[in-house]
């Protein structure tokens, strides 16, 4: 898949920074404003879709290899499971307990540090959803007509 002209390449390399920043904002403030892990993950994956359309598929393959992307995906899932098991260990044998809110770091309402382990769960979900959607879009774009049948 070839890339586009040089105007599109220049402008999209500026715009992708804004898209990634917006996705990280939606993930981090998921406990205060609407959004959260899933919506922010979709926005992060769409920034890579913009790169794939403007620069071609080989550039994105070199930028984020598929093996690294699979590992990011598994890391997101492991992080989420670890947060749940830590609640089991640290907080009186309750699975998924919000141990940061009850014991260590309650925080003030309406601040960024307020809801305990919910921002960390949002980060893990955003990572997993972004990596999975990028894999799906990348692999669906490599299909070609099988002319040997």
């Amino acid at each position, binding site marked *: 898949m070839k890339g586009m002209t040089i105007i599109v390449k220049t402008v999209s390399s500026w715009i992708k920074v804004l898209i990634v920043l917006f996705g990280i904002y939606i993930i981090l403030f998921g406990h205060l*404003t609407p959004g959260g892990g899933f919506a922010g993950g979709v926005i992060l994956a769409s920034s890579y879709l913009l790169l794939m359309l403007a620069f071609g598929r080989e550039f994105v393959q070199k930028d984020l290899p598929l093996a690294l992307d699979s590992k990011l995906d598994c890391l997101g899932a492991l992080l989420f499971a670890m947060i749940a098991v830590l609640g089991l260990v640290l907080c009186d044998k309750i699975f998924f307990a919000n141990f940061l809110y009850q014991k260590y770091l309650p925080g003030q309402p*309406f601040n960024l540090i307020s809801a305990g382990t919910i921002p960390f769960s949002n980060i893990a979900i955003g990572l997993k959803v972004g990596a999975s959607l990028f894999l*799906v879009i990348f692999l*669906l774009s490599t*299909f070609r*007509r*099988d002319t040997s049948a």
Partner: protein
Amino acid sequence: MPYALCFLLFMLGLYCAVVKKNMVKIVIGILVMEYAVNLFLIMLGYRFGGTAPIIERGQLLESGQIANTFLNSSVDPLPQALVLTAIVISLGSLALMISICIRTYEKYGTFDITQIRRLKG
């Protein structure tokens, strides 16, 4: 009245999924059916003159309680949370359907379901 329109949208999606011969149009019909069901579930939690279920700064009192102005006017947030999960599930099933479509096009060369007769490959 809005529930009847939701039902009409569902019927449109069902017509599209049953009658059309192009595979991509069938997939779009299934997608419209899923949209109609999600819309119906969200509309069940609506309250007349309601506001968004997000607590603002003036509605959380010092004792930790939530003010009556929020409790008397917010819509139900529970269907919204469940519909979010349903949207994620429909995204996964859409990816599977599209990859089946692409694979069938590779083997048969056409999207028309009346031309796909015998199993190949």
